[in-house]
């Protein structure tokens, strides 16, 4: 960082302040006889100085924000790992105890099913922590192929896949095939989960501004307006999702995978009409 700009600004301000104070007190009489060229140079220099100062302040602010975000993200990951660690042993002990009971009593079956649900959440939290900062492959990934494979998993839905072929085919994106596969399948899985049999699901992919854009649209139940901002958070589940299996970590995984690829994701939804999720990934 070029700290000398900062020093120059401070020294300049000090000299100017002292001169002004002296002039005000009548200790100094200023007689201005400035050549036009010198005036232009002075004004230009001052403008440059102000511009550089503003730029430096902006860089400092951006760094401070990025640093704070990185610290928060790191603390969050540490928390996820600690949670994972604290939950693992009790869950393991309960799973083995249930195996020892080998009971078909309804109560034991209910406990078993709830423990499986908790285990699922622990594993998904671990997955999230690992995906956040684990190693990532970077190979050319064909998102059209991933979309077609995901479409094949939709049961009892009217699925369409739109991939551009003309005037040129869709470019690949550099990334981790498994993680992008995981993200797309999560979104398609949601489209199926939150729609009725016979609903329409449209999978679209196209190129735009050096990005490949994936859209997954459904005519499902949609999301309430007040819940739209929170659906990307860990363990977020909508009010109306009781009875639908899920850990509330699917969209959080999608967000982490997208960000790790330098991309962005967002969604639009209307209750009762459906949802469109969009993922943009740099080419």
């Amino acid at each position, binding site marked *: 960082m070029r700290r000398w700009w900062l020093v120059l600004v401070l020294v300049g301000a000090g000299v100017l302040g002292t001169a002004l104070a002296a002039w005000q007190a009548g200790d100094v009489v200023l007689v201005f006889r400035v050549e036009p060229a010198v005036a232009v140079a002075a004004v230009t220099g001052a403008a440059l100085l102000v511009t550089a100062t503003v730029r430096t302040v902006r860089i400092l602010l951006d760094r401070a924000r990025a640093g704070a975000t990185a610290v928060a993200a790191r603390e969050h990951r540490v928390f996820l790992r600690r949670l994972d660690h604290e939950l*693992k*042993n009790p869950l393991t002990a309960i*799973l*083995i105890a249930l195996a020892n009971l080998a009971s078909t009593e309804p109560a034991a079956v209910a406990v078993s099913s709830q423990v499986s649900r908790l285990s699922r959440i622990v594993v998904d939290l*671990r*997955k999230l922590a690992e995906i956040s900062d684990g190693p990532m492959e970077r190979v050319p990934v064909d998102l059209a192929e991933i979309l077609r494979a995901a479409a094949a998993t939709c049961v009892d839905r009217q699925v369409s896949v739109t991939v551009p072929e003309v005037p040129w085919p869709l470019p690949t994106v550099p990334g981790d095939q*498994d993680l992008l596969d995981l993200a797309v*399948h*999560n979104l398609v899985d949601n489209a199926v989960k939150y729609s009725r049999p016979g609903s329409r699901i449209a999978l679209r992919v196209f190129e735009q501004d050096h990005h490949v854009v994936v859209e997954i649209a459904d005519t499902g139940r949609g999301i309430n307006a007040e819940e739209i901002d929170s659906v990307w958070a860990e363990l977020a589940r909508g009010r109306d999702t009781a009875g639908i299996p899920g850990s509330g970590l699917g969209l959080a995984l999608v967000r982490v995978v997208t960000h790790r690829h330098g991309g962005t994701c967002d969604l639009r939804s209307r209750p009762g009409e459906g949802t469109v999720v969009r993922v943009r990934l740099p080419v």
Partner: protein
Amino acid sequence: MADSPRASPSDIAPVVLLADDDAAVTGQLVPLLERSGFTVRVVADGEAALLAAERESPDLIVLDVLMPKMDGREVLRRLRRAGLAYPVLLLTQVGESTERAMALEEGADDYLNKPFDPYELVARLRAVLRRSRRGLPALGAAGQVRAGQLRLDRVARRAWLADRELLLTPKAALLLDYLVTHPDELLSRERLLEVVWGWDAISGTRAVDNRIAELRRVLADDAAQPRWIETVPGQGYRFLAEVVTIG
């Protein structure tokens, strides 16, 4: 879910040394393993595990990774340095892929992430035991292994087919390592997902199928008439060739 525990007649109460500092886990695991035909010795820290391994010559050892006095991976390293090739199964506490890769490189024969399906643990222990009972060396401790013309340097993470070095993605290399060190075992896709990725993908198991396809490509293996990797329809994969340690 693996098979329910049932003592095999050929297993004459093999001795399992179980090292875990959580009494809630060991308290439940001991009766389960005993009903599955094992004799169990329990210790609660790494140093005690090392002493018990040297004194009692168990048939296999189950080590929790996070333990007081000495963690499970350090116990494993010391066992291997001392030339003790007991089969070892690690109960990992850390889900990271680097941790898993290191566990295998340091000579664990297998591992499970907590929380695990107890019957899967019994199945893994039996598989490890079958190899050692047949007088075959525990491949987990081997630095280099060979299967026909295929050679793996497990420490350098490199593989050759005859004289040609195989160019593999890191995940395919990890998958090949696990297949080669667990030959003639039916390995479910879920198990392989856990081994290579540390978690099971919501997208099902296509991630495993993609890597198997990559391995078949580089090994010039025909899925219809496999020499190396057999598909067991609806169940998983099996590595077919006989594997020997060469260092």
